[in-house]
C-alpha cells in the first residue's frame, strides 16, 4: 500500500472501474494451471467438505465429503484428490532439461502450479498437507498409499507459497491485487467476486454496481474455504442429513456444486485477465527457482524422504527466515525494475529516481580506496524532478544494467551525480554503451535484485547449545501417523 496505489483506488472510484498498478504480469502463469477450490466445514480446524479441481475450464472434477465428520470419508476424499493431483504433479516431474552451469544438472522443464481463490485457500492447503503427510498405509488406521504422498506435496507447495515471487501455489485475489487497484478497500479485495467485478464488470454495469451484485451470496457464494452460514443452515445441514438416512451423496454433491461452480468460472476469468498481460522480464528466472525446488523435492521423495516434521529446528528456522527475507527483497527489486508502474512506489518514497542524463564525464579516472592504480570511475549527472531522499555514498542499481554498481556522489537541487564503479570492460576508458549518454532517460534505485547479503548461519549439525544443539532429524512416529482427525 502506498500513496500511488491509494491514488489509483480513488481513481477507480471516479472511473467506476479498477485501475492498473502494473504494466506487466509479475507471476508465472502455467499453460495448464491446476485450479483448486477447497471448501471446509465451518467450525472445524481442517475438515474438508468439498473441492472443485482440474486443469480444464470445461471439465472440473467435483469431490465431496458427504459427512464431513466421518474420518474414513475424509481420507477417501484425500485419496480422490490424490487421483487428480498426483498424476499432474508426477507427470511434470518426468520431463527434464539440462541446465548449463559450472556443474551441469538436470532440472524439470516445468513444475506444478496450483491456483486457489484466496489466502484462506493457501492456509487450508497447508492444513490438508499437515493432516495427511504423517499417515501410514499400515497399522491401526491405514490410509490409501497416495494419501501421505499427497500430504507431502501439499506441504511442499504451501511452503513455496511463503516465498515472495514463487508461483507454485498462488492465491488468485493476491495475484489480481498485484496488478489492479479496485475502488474498494484491500480488505474487500479478498473477495474474488467483488474484486473481479471491479476489474472486469459485465456488460451494462460499472464496477461498483457489479461489485454490489457480486456481494449477493446467492449469485456469488463465498470462494471458500468457509461456506456461507446461511447455506450451511438452510441447505447443507439437510443435505448431510439426507445422506445419513439414504446413503446417497447426490444431494450433498448438488448443494456443494452450486457453491463451487460460480467460483470456478471466476478463477478462469482471473486466469484469462492475467494472461492478457505480457510477462515481466524476471518472471522466468523466478519460475526457474520453483522448478529447481520441484526437482529437488521430486528426488527427495523418490529416495523415500521423510515428511517434514511438525516444527523446525532453530537453525533451519533461521535459515528459512533469512531465505524468505532475501527472496522478498529480490522480488521487490525485480518487480520495480521490470515495471515502471511499480517503480513509482519507490520514486514516491524517494528511494528511486528517474530523469534525463545532462552531463557525463566518461574519461574520469581515480585511484579507488584500497587500490594502487587509477581506474575508470565515470560521473553521470542526472536531472530529476523526483523527490530524492538519498544521500551521497548510497549504492544504487540502474534499470538499464541491474548488475552495474553505482553510488551517489552529490545531490544539488534537482541534479544527482552518480559514479559508475564496474561493468565497463577492461580498457582504460569505459567500453562503448557501458555508461549512459547525455540525453538518455535513466532510472536508479536503492534496491537490490540479488536479494542482498545473507547472514552466515551454522549448518544444522553445528547448532550451538544455546539454540538447543543439533536438532534430532524428524523420524516418523506412530503417534503422528495415528493422530486423530476428528
Amino acid at each position, binding site marked *: 500500500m502506498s*500513496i500511488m496505489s491509494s491514488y489509483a483506488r480513488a481513481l477507480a*472510484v471516479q472511473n467506476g472501474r479498477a485501475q492498473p498498478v502494473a504494466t506487466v504480469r509479475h507471476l508465472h502463469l502455467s499453460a495448464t494451471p491446476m485450479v483448486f477450490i477447497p471448501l471446509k466445514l*465451518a467450525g472445524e480446524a481442517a475438515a474438508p467438505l468439498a473441492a472443485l479441481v482440474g486443469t480444464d475450464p470445461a471439465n472440473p472434477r467435483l469431490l465431496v465429503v458427504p459427512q464431513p465428520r466421518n474420518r474414513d470419508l475424509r481420507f477417501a476424499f484425500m485419496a480422490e484428490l490424490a487421483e487428480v493431483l498426483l498424476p499432474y504433479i508426477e507427470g511434470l516431474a518426468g520431463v527434464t532439461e539440462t541446465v548449463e552451469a559450472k556443474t551441469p544438472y538436470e532440472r524439470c522443464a516445468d513444475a506444478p502450479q496450483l491456483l486457489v481463490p484466496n489466502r484462506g485457500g493457501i492456509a487450508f492447503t497447508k492444513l490438508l498437507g499437515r493432516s495427511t503427510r504423517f499417515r501410514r498405509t499400515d497399522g491401526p488406521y491405514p490410509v490409501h498409499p497416495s494419501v501421505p504422498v499427497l500430504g507431502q506435496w501439499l506441504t511442499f507447495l504451501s511452503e513455496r507459497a511463503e516465498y515472495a515471487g514463487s508461483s507454485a501455489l498462488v492465491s488468485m485475489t493476491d495475484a489480481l491485487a498485484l496488478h489492479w487497484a479496485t*475502488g474498494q478497500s484491500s480488505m474487500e479485495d479478498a473477495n474474488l467476486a467483488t474484486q473481479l467485478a471491479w476489474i472486469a464488470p459485465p456488460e451494462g454495469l460499472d464496477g461498483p454496481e457489479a461489485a454490489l451484485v457480486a456481494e449477493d451470496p446467492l449469485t456469488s457464494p463465498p470462494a471458500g474455504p468457509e*461456506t456461507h*452460514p446461511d447455506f450451511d*443452515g438452510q441447505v447443507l445441514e439437510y443435505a448431510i442429513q439426507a445422506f445419513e438416512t439414504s446413503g446417497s451423496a447426490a444431494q450433498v454433491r448438488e448443494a456443494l456444486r452450486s457453491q463451487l461452480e460460480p467460483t470456478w468460472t471466476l478463477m478462469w476469468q482471473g486466469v484469462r485477465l492475467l494472461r492478457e498481460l505480457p510477462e515481466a522480464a524476471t518472471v522466468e528466472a523466478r519460475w526457474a527457482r520453483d522448478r529447481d525446488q520441484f526437482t529437488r523435492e521430486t528426488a527427495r521423495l523418490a529416495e523415500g524422504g521423510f515428511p517434514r516434521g511438525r*516444527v523446525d529446528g532453530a537453525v533451519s528456522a533461521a535459515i528459512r527466515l533469512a531465505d524468505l527475507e532475501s527472496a522478498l527483497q529480490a522480488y521487490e527489486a525485480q518487480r520495480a525494475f521490470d515495471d515502471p508502474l511499480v517503480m513509482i512506489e519507490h520514486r514516491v518514497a524517494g528511494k528511486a529516481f528517474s530523469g534525463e542524463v545532462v552531463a557525463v564525464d566518461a574519461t574520469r579516472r581515480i585511484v579507488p580506496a584500497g587500490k594502487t592504480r587509477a581506474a575508470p570511475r565515470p560521473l553521470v549527472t542526472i536531472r530529476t524532478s523526483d523527490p530524492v531522499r538519498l544521500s551521497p555514498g548510497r549504492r544504487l542499481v540502474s534499470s538499464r544494467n541491474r548488475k552495474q554498481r553505482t553510488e551517489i556522489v552529490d545531490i544539488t537541487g534537482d541534479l544527482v551525480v552518480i559514479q559508475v564503479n564496474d561493468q565497463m570492460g577492461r580498457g582504460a576508458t569505459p567500453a562503448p554503451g557501458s555508461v549512459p549518454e547525455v540525453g538518455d532517460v535513466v532510472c536508479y534505485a536503492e534496491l537490490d535484485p540479488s536479494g542482498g547479503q545473507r547472514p552466515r548461519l551454522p549448518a544444522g549439525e553445528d547448532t550451538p547449545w544455546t539454540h538447543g544443539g543439533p536438532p534430532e532429524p524428524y523420524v516418523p512416529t506412530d503417534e503422528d501417523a495415528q493422530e*486423530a482427525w*476428528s
Partner: protein
Amino acid sequence: MTRLDTLRGPAEPLDHNARTIAALAVNPGCDRRALLDAAGVDKQRTATHLGFPAPFGQSPFAITRAKSFDALVKANGCAHLLRLLRSTLDLSISEASYSDISDVGGNDDHQVRHTRTRALLKRAATDGDGAGTLFDHPLLKLTVAGHEVYLEPAVIAFQIEGRFHIVEIKSFAVIDDQADAGQVAAAARQSAVYVHALRALFTAEGLDPGRISHNVVLVCPKDFANHPTATLLDVRQQLAALERQLSRLTRIDRILDELPIGITFDLETQSPDEVGKAVATVGARFAPECLASCEMSLFCRAEARDRESTDVLGRAARDELGGIESIPAVLGLADDSRPPSPEQLEIAEQLRYVRRIYTEAVA
C-alpha cells in the same frame, strides 16, 4: 422512561457481550454505534429493516462444534478443565467447587444474577479459601460510554488462594502450537473485556483489582482432535488498549444532546425510510473493518459511498491520501482543479506528483 428507552422503542434492550464491546473499542470514534449499543437497540434487526442485513452470521456447524467442545471441557465436574488449570497455572489444585450462575434458583433475571455473582465473588475473595472455585457464567456489568450494560457471561472465573483468572473456552484449533493469529487476537481482546469488568467489580466492592490476573487461560482443541489444551494469554496490551478506548468513547449524553427532539429507532412504528433518516442523524465513522464487526456496516458503507468518502478505501489508504475526506477532493488536488487549503499544501504537492508520474507510466 429514559431518553435511551424512547430511542429503542418498546423492544427489550439487547445484552452486550465481549465481542460487541471489543468491536465498540475497535471503532471508538463512532457515535452511531455507541448510541445504538447504549440504547440496547437490536442492530441486526435494524439493519435488516433498513434493507441492509448484516453481512455475517454464524454457521450452525460452528455453533454445534463450539457447544460440544465447551461441554467436553466442562464434563465430569470440569475434569478436563481442572487438569489443564493444574498444568498451565502450575498449581496443585486438590479439589475445586463449581457454581453455575446462569440462573439463581430458577430465576434468570439479570439483576438477580448479577447480585449473586457479586456476592459469590466477594465471598471467594474475602474468605481466601485455599481450594479452587469455578464460577461459570458470571454476570458482570460494565460502564460503556457513561452507561451501564450487562455482559453476556461466556467465560468462567476461577479463584484459587484469593487470586482470580478468567478462563475462556474457544473451539478454534491450536495446531503444532500455533493457532490462527486473527482468532487468538480476537480472543485476547474479548478476554480483556472480562478482566476489565471483573476488576471494575472488585474496585466497586473495595477489593484489590490487582488480584485478577492479566493472564487469561485460553482453552482450545489441540491439533485435529477434540482434546483440549490450555495456554496462558497475557492480555495486558489489550487491556490497556481497551481502557484507553473506553475512556475516549464519547459520552452518550453528549450524543443525546445533539440529537433532534422526538427521534426514535422504533422498528414497530417507523418505516424503513424514517428509521434510515433517524440513524443518519447520528454521526458514523465507517471503516471496512466494520464489515466484520458491526451489523450496521452495509448501511454505513452505502452512506459513505454516497458521500464519496475516502473511508470506503480503507484506513490505510485514507491515511496515505493525507486524511483528505472525499475522493473528489483527492482527485481535485491531484489534477490541480481544486485549490489546496494551507494545511493541504504538502499532500497536494505529493498528489500532483503522483498523478503526473502515474499518468506517464500508464500511457
